[in-house]
């Protein structure tokens, strides 16, 4: 987080400009909308600039006739009516074009956000495990939501408003110069002053706001932790201490906010004061010229309206500059995802893996998460014949999970080869490879949708009969039909809550339906009661029958019945063989085995 913030706010404006330009290049995907928006902007601004001129005309008509003795009433009336009609016409035009500008630029921004989200989503779906190991769900979510929204805001209004502000600024200034150079020179010094104040605002306010954000996130972290760990808080009777801790954090926040207020309550009104001083200057110096006879009241009024047009875009630009910095940081985070290199991809000449028997060979496999990192697996060699059960045994971090992750090619080996029926897994298509491998993980995630959808997750085209058969084999059918909606019961975040054991059985049914030749199991039943555990065990036995199975073993029975046991320690196979041979020849295995026996076995 800290690193991110630094980078986001950091002074690498070149990178920032680059990413912003890149996000603006999305505009070219919608040439018609973009052109319409810019056209609307130009016409709306033109109409806006015309109005003060007509107001001048009206006032001039009045003043001209005030001083003349003989009034040509018909001509004056005609001029007045023409001017009124013109204002109405320009007002309507301004309204229509401003609407077109706003609407199309918003539509544009939503279309671009749509593209960005789609791009991010597909990229995330395809990126390999090693990417996801380094990026948490929450962070990726923020990029796909907040960052996209911020960038959308910038493209949808920031970019176009900046353009509008510039056009208005330049247009107004040239009009002012054109109509009355002298008066323009009087107010010109106010422009740099305004810019300095805005600059000051940017320099002073940005770090202050960041300070508020930091204090706020500190307070929220304390809060989040407190709520998530409320049971611990209560168990240790530390409510009072937590209260004090939180109070301290929100007092800090208040302090920081008041610092910001002090600065802003000075800066904001000052900006308006500068603008108003410009008005006073026009009133005074313009007034002097009127008295001197070199300026008309109408032109004087026009000047004062144009002056508003001059300050308004400057305020807008100041606002947009702040927005730009944030949008740039967001764009950078978004493109970071899009540019992430996927290290696991189909080779151009990858072939389909067909008729899998289930023979799996690891040949001198070494694996590192990072090129220069420590080896997580070192020179792993073993062969699993079709239909065998392979049990992996070892402490946390010994490399069990890494081994099973290499079989469906969630990661690529650093050295050596993984072969399935003699094919290097890197030579076949990912799709055909993974469709032949069933996986039951310890933590089962169910997706939004019905139970049926979830069982058919890997084979959406499966028939109801097939789904039901899989559920029966996984000992899940009975509890599924006990729900009022049966297989159509909605699950996932907004659906029925299933117990851990029920979820696990659905995961088993899901793997069964694939009818895979190779099976990978994380054989641990967490937090289920004893009865359920027994049922799950039976379902797993059904699943494993006749398939090459890799099991991260927690239960003694699994180990004992395995055809091949791999004992892992610090990324190496320290012993392999069957239960009998290992028990006889490998003291380390005997130790592990007995230690667990002491705990779990019934004393004879």
């Amino acid at each position, binding site marked *: 987080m800290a690193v991110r913030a630094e980078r986001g706010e950091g002074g690498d404006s070149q990178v920032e400009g680059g990413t912003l330009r890149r996000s603006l290049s999305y505009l070219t995907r919608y040439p018609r909308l973009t052109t319409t928006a810019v056209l609307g902007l130009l016409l709306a601004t033109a109409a806006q600039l015309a109005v003060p001129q007509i107001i001048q005309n009206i006032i001039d008509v009045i003043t001209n006739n005030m001083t003349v003795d003989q009034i040509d009433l018909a001509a004056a009336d005609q001029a007045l009516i023409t001017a009124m009609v013109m204002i109405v016409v320009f007002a309507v035009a301004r309204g229509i074009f401003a609407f077109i500008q706003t609407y199309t630029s918003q539509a544009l921004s939503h279309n671009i956000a749509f593209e960005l989200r789609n791009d991010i989503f597909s990229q995330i779906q395809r990126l390999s495990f090693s990417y996801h190991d380094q990026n948490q769900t929450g962070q990726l979510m923020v990029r796909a939501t907040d960052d996209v929204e911020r960038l959308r805001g910038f493209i949808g209004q920031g970019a176009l408003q900046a353009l509008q502000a510039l056009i208005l600024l330049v247009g107004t200034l040239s009009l002012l110069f054109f109509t009355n150079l002298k008066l323009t020179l009087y107010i010109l010094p106010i422009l740099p002053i305004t810019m300095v104040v805005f600059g000051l605002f940017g320099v002073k306010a940005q770090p202050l706001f960041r300070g508020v954000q930091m204090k706020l996130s500190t*307070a929220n972290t304390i809060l989040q932790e407190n709520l998530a760990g409320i049971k611990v808080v209560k168990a240790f009777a530390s409510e009072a201490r937590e209260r004090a801790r939180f109070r301290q954090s929100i007092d800090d926040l208040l302090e920081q906010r008041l610092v910001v207020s002090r600065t802003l309550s000075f800066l904001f009104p000052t900006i308006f004061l500068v603008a108003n001083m410009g008005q006073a200057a026009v009133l005074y110096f313009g007034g002097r010229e009127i008295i001197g006879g070199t300026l008309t009241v109408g032109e004087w009024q026009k000047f004062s309206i144009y002056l508003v047009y001059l300050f308004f875009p400057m305020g807008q630009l100041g606002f947009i500059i702040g927005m730009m910095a944030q949008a740039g940081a967001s764009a950078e985070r978004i493109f970071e995802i899009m540019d992430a290199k996927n290290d696991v991809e189909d080779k151009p000449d990858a072939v389909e893996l067909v008729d899998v028997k289930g023979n799996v060979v690891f040949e001198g496999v070494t694996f590192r998460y990072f090129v220069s990192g420590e080896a997580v697996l070192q020179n792993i060699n073993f062969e699993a014949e079709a239909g065998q059960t392979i049990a992996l045994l070892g402490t946390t971090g010994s490399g069990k999970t890494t081994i099973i992750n290499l079989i469906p090619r969630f990661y690529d080996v650093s050295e050596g080869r993984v072969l399935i029926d003699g094919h290097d897994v890197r030579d076949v298509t990912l799709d055909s490879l993974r469709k032949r491998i069933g996986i039951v993980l310890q933590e089962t995630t169910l997706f939004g949708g019905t139970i049926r959808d979830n069982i058919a997750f890997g084979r959406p085209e499966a028939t109801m009969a097939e789904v039901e058969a899989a559920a029966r084999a996984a000992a899940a059918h009975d509890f599924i039909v006990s729900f009022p909606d049966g297989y159509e019961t909605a699950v996932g975040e907004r659906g029925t809550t299933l117990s851990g054991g029920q979820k696990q059985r659905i995961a088993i049914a899901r793997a069964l339906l694939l009818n895979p030749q190779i099976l990978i199991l994380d054989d641990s039943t967490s937090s289920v009661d004893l009865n359920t555990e027994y049922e799950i065990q039976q379902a797993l036995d059904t699943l494993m029958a006749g398939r090459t199975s890799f099991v991260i073993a927690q239960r003694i029975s699994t180990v004992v019945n395995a055809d091949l046991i791999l004992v892992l320690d610090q990324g190496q196979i320290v012993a392999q063989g069957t239960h009998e041979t290992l028990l006889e020849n490998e003291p380390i295995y005997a130790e592990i085995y007995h230690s667990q026996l002491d705990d779990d076995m019934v004393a004879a």
Partner: protein
Amino acid sequence: MFDRQAQLLGVEVRQARSVRSTLSRLWQYYREYRWLVAVAFLLIVFSTGAQVVVPVLTGQAVDCYLAPVEGGGVSCLFGEATTTAERLTGLGKLIGLVVFLYVGGTVMTSVQFYLISVAGFRMLRNIRADVFAHTQRLSLGYFTEHETGDVMSRFTNDLDTLQQIISFGLVQVIQGILFLVMIVGAMFANHVPFAIISLVTLPLMFLATQWLSRQARRAFREARKEIGAVNADLQESIAAVREVQAFSREEENIEQFGAVNAANRDANVRAQAYSSALAPTLEALSYINIAIVAGVGGYVMLRDGILWGAPISLGLIVTFISFAQQFNRPVQQLALLWANLQSAIAGSERIFDLLDDTMMIEDKAEAEVMPPIQGDVVFQKVWAGYKPNEPVLKGIDLAVEKGEMVAIVGPTGAGKTTIINLLPRFWDVTDGQVLIDGIDVRDVTRDSLRQQIGLVLQDTFLFSDTIMNNIRYGRPAATDEEVVEAAKLARADQFITRLPQGYETVLGERGTGLSQGQRQLLAIARVALMDPRILILDEATSSVDTRTERQIQVALDKLLAGRTSFVIAHRLSTIRNADQLLVLKDGQIIEQGTHDSLLAEQGFYYDLYMNQFRRQEESEKDVVR
């Protein structure tokens, strides 16, 4: 600007049931700062007044000094002028006054802005502190019913909307209304018929604003549902990306997401049609208003200068044009703020709902400090439940002598957790009594009770702080040596000292960086440091490798020795060694005894046990062979 507006219009406006009571609650918080607010309000009146006076002064400048008409009947503030020199000084004086008003207005705005933020932010801090303090008092039952995210969002989203309105939103509303009222007042004071003509577009502005905002709000409500679907899809597919890839579902998911994403885009674009129309409509109306003022004024001026019996001057037209120009801003602001105000009220309602929730375990007024616990525990006909009429425990009777170990087994939902929640009084019985050393737990203070009961939960919760402070959590006063002592007892010392920063290692959020087993060892150390007489253990067997599990077991055995303990049992060793075994089903104890006596009964426990361990017995035969 437009986007912000769209956002505000999009806020769900919940029809507040008791707006008045919510407002009066808010007033309670405001009260403390009422003088600050009153002074600020006074300053707003003056600074807004200054804003309204300037166009009037400009009009005067025109009529008295710039384009004076003889016998125009205009009363001049700084006297009428005939010579050029007099006109110049008059103008100078008027502009001097304008500058003075500008500067004065700026100073007042500065002060007002600061006062309001002081009041607003302090008030907000007070609400935050109150809400937090209240959550600390709420019983665990509240947190089983409400998810952490839900409670969090009251602190973040609801308080944020409230904050926006409390400080500057409210000021802007007041300022906007004052500004409108003052402009209208100034117009009428100057020229009643002209004022009426100038105001013809104002009702149109209000109507357009109201209609467009309502349409936009409706459209945005639709759009918000779509973005909800987008976020749910994102969240799910990212969190479970490993499974998606394992089942080769990437392409289907991408296609599915594309559809949801497109629906969201379309709904938003539809909604934009209304919100994009608001500002241009108001702007066009204000230009038309200028045309009317200038046209009608000019028409009258070209003739006798009398409109319905009252004279019009050029200065008056200038003043009115200036007013007409400024109409649309406050109208637009008010529309946005109104929506914002309503959502802030809805937000505060949710905050006050939480504050009013009385699901609490409170100390009795006469509660005494729990004397040092010996460890005798008695449950007398205990009934308990989280919802009325849905008892979880139905008449539990139990007597535990000090130093005994009680193992509780039973299916999910049988009431195991509820039993252990009653001891530290996380929850109160609905009927019956829980006695420790003969004292009803409801008769002593919670703190003194809980400080003597140790708890090791299945899902170990650690704070993002140093290991030292995490172990010290239950006894902040413990010395470093005592902490190390406890860690040694819990067998945690070994892995801690192996970390580069040792005890000063700062743990990530929820203890990330440590393995599950290591976290459990820390939780055990934390309890060991408290040296409680009663221990509650939710045994966790999952995701720990065999060797670590063994270490945990050794640590627990040490900890349990000599203390009364309640264990939700998963491990066979625990079950076998327990002094008492409770089999719980549907809130009742259906079997009670020791391992051997229950096996002999051949009841529920027997089946449970046999089911699970048949396979182990089989493999045991293998070993024997």
